[in-house]
């Protein structure tokens, strides 16, 4: 792609975008900016509106308010065939009556390029996706992974302004998924296309993205770089989505680094609330260890860690980990589960008391929702 004339301004800009469904707003006042060459993931559970946003960028649906700009051109009412965007569909959407080559050349023919140019570009992108050998096959003769690569090559071949991905890996098995993730990532490194990627899988989003927009109920909960989302989840919803699966209700923030849950004090790694406020604590399952087990885990006691007491409700092995169901107090109001990254022998006895080291980086505090 010739990219020398492209300035580093926003490639995609959504301002106050609104979408109604049967007179009910599914997306309201959405704002989003994406720089040239950036890889953005729209992440959220089903019904969060991520596909709707993607389809509005694509032009397959039109916003009921606000504006969408691509390369500073207002495309809010421009039909999809006039937007020059590449799209990779969940179900591949390959033309079944055409060969792999014809599929990849489809968009080039639509652009009325010269025959040699079509040939050159189609062959180039087939080679890039490792499909040259399969050029004369029909889609139904290909495996799912191969079909998705054709879909990728077809979208890339038109050298679009933006690549759009609609949950492209959700139909593939785990092994193929990893392989395709790697391939998409490498293609992005190589071609530096701007991308919007819709997924409900946080691992895909973390692996691929420069930026992630976490969506819930048609609103952006957090829009940031992956490491920021991992370490400083902005809301309890984001925390929950990224593995902070334990919740302690009725917690009181003592100071910026300490929270009290029914008298038990826990270290807090991230909060934006003021001391004295009451709310909920979210904690990851990992990043916890049993006192006396530090050496094996490599989790050294530091000032970020604090030892607390907990009571064992249940202890089981899970692969190479040990999963413990614990509670903070004897009455059992505040139960939580942790994963110790070793096989602990013997398993702690039920109802016994153990000392836990908590890594503050894995604990966050939010106001009650």
């Amino acid at each position: 792609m010739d990219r020398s004339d492209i300035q580093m301004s926003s490639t995609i800009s959504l301002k106050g975008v609104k979408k109604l469904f049967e007179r009910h707003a599914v997306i309201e006042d959405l704002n989003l900016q994406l720089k040239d060459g950036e890889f953005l993931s729209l992440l959220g559970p089903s019904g969060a509106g991520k596909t709707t946003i993607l389809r509005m960028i694509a032009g397959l649906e039109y916003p009921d308010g606000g504006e969408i700009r691509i390369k500073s051109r207002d495309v809010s009412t421009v039909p999809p065939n006039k937007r020059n965007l590449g799209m990779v569909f969940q179900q591949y959407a390959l033309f079944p009556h055409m060969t792999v080559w014809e599929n990849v050349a489809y968009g080039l023919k639509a652009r009325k390029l010269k025959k040699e140019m079509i040939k050159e570009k189609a062959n180039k992108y087939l080679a890039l996706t490792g499909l040259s050998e399969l050029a004369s096959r029909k889609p139904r003769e290909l495996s799912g992974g191969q079909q998705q690569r054709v879909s990728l090559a077809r979208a890339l071949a038109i050298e679009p302004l933006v690549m759009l991905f609609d949950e492209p890996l959700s139909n593939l098995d785990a092994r193929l998924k990893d392989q395709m993730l790697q391939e998409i990532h490498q293609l992005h490194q190589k071609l530096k296309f701007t991308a919007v990627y819709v997924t409900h899988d946080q691992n895909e989003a973390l692996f691929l993205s420069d930026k992630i927009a976490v969506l819930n109920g048609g609103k952006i909960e957090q829009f940031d770089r992956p490491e920021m989302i991992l370490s400083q989840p902005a809301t309890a919803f984001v925390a929950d989505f990224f593995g902070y699966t334990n919740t302690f209700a009725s917690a009181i923030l003592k100071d910026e680094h300490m929270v009290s849950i029914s008298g038990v004090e826990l270290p807090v790694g991230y909060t934006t609330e003021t001391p004295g406020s009451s709310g909920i604590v979210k904690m990851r399952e990992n990043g916890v260890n049993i006192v006396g087990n530090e050496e094996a885990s490599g989790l050294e006691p530091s000032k970020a860690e604090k030892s607390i007491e907990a009571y064992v409700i249940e202890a089981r092995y899970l692969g190479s980990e040990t999963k413990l169901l614990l509670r903070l107090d004897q009455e059992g109001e505040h139960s939580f589960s942790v994963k110790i990254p070793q096989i602990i022998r013997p398993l702690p006895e039920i109802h016994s008391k153990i000392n836990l080291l908590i890594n503050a980086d894995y604990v966050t505090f939010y106001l009650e929702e």
Partner: protein
Amino acid sequence: MIKNKKYYTIAGWLAALYFILLFLVPLLRMFTLSFFSEGKISFEYYTTIFTSPVYLRVLYRTLYVSFLVTGIGLVIGYAISYFISQKSEKQQKKWLILVLSPMFMSLTIRLFGWMMLLGQEGLINRVFSWLSPGKDGIPLLFSYTAVAIGIVHYCLPFIILNIYASLKRVDNALIEASLMLGESKVKTFWKVIFPLSLPGIFAAASISFALSASTFLVPLMLGGPNNLFVSNLAYNAIVNMGDYPQGAALSIVLLFIVVIVLSIISFFERRSRIA
């Protein structure tokens, strides 16, 4: 489960038996009948058909009108099917019921309706004479045209059902993919939707041609004595003249031609499926 399987096997055999006794046996009887004259094997009845100008003309008319009507039916049927397939799911159901509703009524009654529309004092001629007073009405009823109109009317629901089903099978994501790749809506229709609906078109053509070529009622009611089809001649031979072998031979010739045409269509249908 095993018990169920047995039940289905028995039901299957009963159906086969029913089919053999009530369909294949009479057909075979017709076949043998047409080859025997006074107890001897003879091609007399076939020779009669292929040497008599009357029979040949009727045969030609039957095939010609069937092809014509199939072509017209496919064009009209495709347009209607496409129109319906573009509606919302709810609307589609309503439109389909509307299109298929004539099938719930006897063909005879529907053809009486056409007789009233096309007749000398019919609606169409009245509108015509109102538009250009003083001129005679156009003789619509008991003509070629009337038969063609009647058969199109008769076949259209079958055509629409087939084409609509094949249009529904075209994945919407394919249309979206084509648009995303920069193709216009019209080009998308010709490059994606139309080729993928070909199996439905061929299926519709088969049914339409078979129904047209074998129709008895439409030429009888709308065509009058000068526009009869092969099936009408076979009926005349058997019922009016008691000439069973001649009627049988006519039916077999018609059957043979229809089977050949259907084989050709199904050859193309299979090719379009693989494509």
